[in-house]
């Protein structure tokens, strides 16, 4: 059914259609509307046979999820930013124990300085935590990926993060096609756990494992993700058969035919990039786009295949690996090892900095002329940076950097280049 609704609401409805049995909620922007929506559905009885628990922290949220998932309940939670970092120990534990929890990460920057706006620093900081990470480009995709996520997670006994851009998607009202309960039931079977805390068949879960088997247990986690690499495209096909929508998969190429420059990105920024690429194609530029949906497992082969015929690629990412540059870019470079391609890393949109079509047009043109620096910070205000660096050179007690830089900027509601 077509409807106009907020991204968070669409996700809440989709999660409810998946018949979750335990939901843990702790408020953190910009994820909050999702669990609010689910809480309302639990209260009204629209979502029945589901325990909605208001916990005291994100660490508790993931811990409650661990307990309920290990007891055989389909379990969901959502978080963002500091919340994800606060639960990290339990995040690793959930994947280590092989518990198929599904969690929405409404991507948001990480402080300090504190910032509530969107970038991908939070979930990308958890790239090695053993969870599958799927990135949504649109609200429709966010909605649909949640339905796929439960199936994928439960088949493989692995937790799945569905990552959607905070505010840009979570708070945007868009038209979505909401599936029916019958469709979701046809696609998603009831949860059959591999391991369950059951007095009829007692097992110990979470025993100490020493050097004699730790490597093997860890390898199995990798093997599971490699299985996911095969299952994710199949699930997209199965999904299409039931819902009629081409959603999910590992990667998506847009206007890649004959492209000399390929732009690689994840999440909602792909929409802006595609608009710019359309304009540039009209102007005769040979440019295309590669969107990555599955960041973990990272589809090395699919990325390599999508880029093998281009001359150069630009990875535009909303994250920064301080001290080296890009996170997504590093992964992409691994996929094209030995192909002799020119690669550029562009860090953009940190902390909600707007990524405009104008900036992207200029950026991609520059890349096309091979004039781009290997690492670029899109629309960085060099004047502000240089003033601060100078201040630190001049004065020992230069004070807190962020506050000084804000003072230099004066009062601005939001910075749009």
């Amino acid at each position, binding site marked *: 059914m077509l409807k106009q609704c907020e991204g968070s609401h669409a996700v809440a409805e989709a999660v409810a259609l998946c018949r979750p049995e335990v939901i843990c909620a702790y408020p953190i922007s910009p994820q909050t509307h999702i669990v609010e929506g689910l809480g309302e559905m639990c209260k009204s009885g629209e979502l029945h046979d589901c325990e909605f628990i208001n*916990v005291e922290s994100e660490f508790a949220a*993931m811990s409650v999820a661990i307990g*309920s998932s290990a007891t055989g309940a389909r379990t969901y939670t959502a978080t963002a930013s500091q919340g994800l970092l606060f639960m990290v120990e339990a995040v690793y*534990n959930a994947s280590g124990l092989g518990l198929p929890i599904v969690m929405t990460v409404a991507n948001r920057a990480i402080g300090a300085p504190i910032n509530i706006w969107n970038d991908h620093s939070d979930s990308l900081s958890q790239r090695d935590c053993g969870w599958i990470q799927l990135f949504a480009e649109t609200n429709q995709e966010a909605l649909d990926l949640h339905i796929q996520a439960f199936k994928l997670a439960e088949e493989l006994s692995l937790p799945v993060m569905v990552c959607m851009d905070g505010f840009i998607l979570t708070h945007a009202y868009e038209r979505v096609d909401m599936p029916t309960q019958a469709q979701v039931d046809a696609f998603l079977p009831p949860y059959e756990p591999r391991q369950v805390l059951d*007095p009829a068949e007692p097992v110990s879960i979470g025993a100490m494992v020493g050097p004699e*088997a730790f490597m093997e247990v860890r390898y199995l986690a990798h093997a599971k993700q490699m299985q996911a690499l095969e299952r994710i495209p199949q699930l997209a096909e199965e999904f299409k058969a039931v819902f009629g929508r081409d959603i999910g998969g590992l990667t998506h190429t847009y206007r890649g035919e004959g492209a000399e420059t390929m732009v690689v990105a994840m999440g909602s920024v792909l929409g802006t990039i595609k608009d710019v690429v359309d304009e540039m194609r009209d102007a005769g530029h040979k440019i295309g786009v590669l969107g990555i949906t599955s960041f973990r497992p990272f589809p090395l082969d699919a990325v390599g295949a999508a880029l093998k015929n281009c001359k150069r690629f630009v990875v535009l990412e909303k994250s920064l690996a301080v001290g080296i540059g890009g996170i997504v870019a590093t992964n992409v470079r691994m996929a094209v090892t030995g192909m002799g391609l020119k690669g550029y890393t562009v860090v953009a949109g940190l902390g909600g900095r707007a990524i405009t079509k104008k900036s992207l047009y200029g950026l991609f043109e520059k890349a096309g002329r091979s004039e781009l620096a290997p690492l670029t910070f899109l629309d960085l205000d060099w004047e502000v940076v240089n003033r601060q660096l100078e201040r630190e050179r001049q004065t020992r007690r230069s004070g807190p950097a962020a506050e000084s830089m804000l003072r230099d900027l004066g009062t601005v509601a939001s910075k749009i280049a």
Partner: protein
Amino acid sequence: MPLQPVKFYQTGTFTVGNRLLAPEERSVQANMQRTNSLNSGHRACQGCGEALGARYAIDAAMNASNRQLIAANATGCLEVFSTPYPETSWQIPWIHSLFGNTAAVATGIAAAIKIKKQKGQGGDVRVVAQGGDGGTTDIGFGCLSGMFERNDDVLYICYDNGGYMNTGVQRSSATPAAARTATTMPLGPEPGNPFGQGKFVPAIAMAHEIPYVATATVADLRDLEHKITKAMGMRGARYIHILVPCPLGWGTASQDTIHLARLAKETGIFPVFGAEYGELKTALAIRRQLPVEDYLRPQKRFAHLFGKSPAVATIARIQALADKNIRKYGLLDREGSR
């Protein structure tokens, strides 16, 4: 014929032996059908108070729940000595997640059980969470308090040995004043753990006004079994805090574990009581009050108090703490006792 006084089988502790009791009054441990939830063969130290406490507690909980029990366990001695992969001593469904999240994991288990039961997919399974004092009063305290205030249907059992024994005897917020640990060495003008610090979590649990809070020791095991059974007969958040001497951390002989637990109670150092909805209901009376010195002297962690010149003032401060417990919990008040 002169009156023959009834001769009870005495263990020297006013304890009535099982063989003189009717079968239904006998202890869970006296029953051949006990579950041995924490089975023999585990790797606890000789004389481990925690292993003893856990065996009695979990068997009693199993008995009270019709053997429909799931346990969540914090990281710590109990977890390590009971489950070195691929061996496990647990005869019940058991999960270890992390050091600081056990109460929350138990909340999750309880939530899943509730829904499964509601859907007709599961029976009336009960949940216990257990951890040491570090995992309870320090790192797991946030999750514990959360579980309490939501009144989740979990019995949380804390085995308190007064420190981080698993990592080599460091101070916790349950380490008693003046005790030596690896991080409160008996050096300087105030040797050992400082006075005026630490917290007594049973009192904090009572402040949450949860259905049941109790303390126990491994010296009064019938009392422990009774409290576990009582707790399992109730719903909502319940907390039982058990004093479990640690030969390694306390520097005591392994055969003295129960004796020391008894001394902790008889000196007033450790008040043994039960409370419901935030109100003190019962206290296990001190039978023969003893000076704290009797409790302190056998323990190497207090050895610095008994050198060539005994630390009389420090011992007096500890005595004052015990006296305060006696007043506060009515430990010499026969009428208030169970």
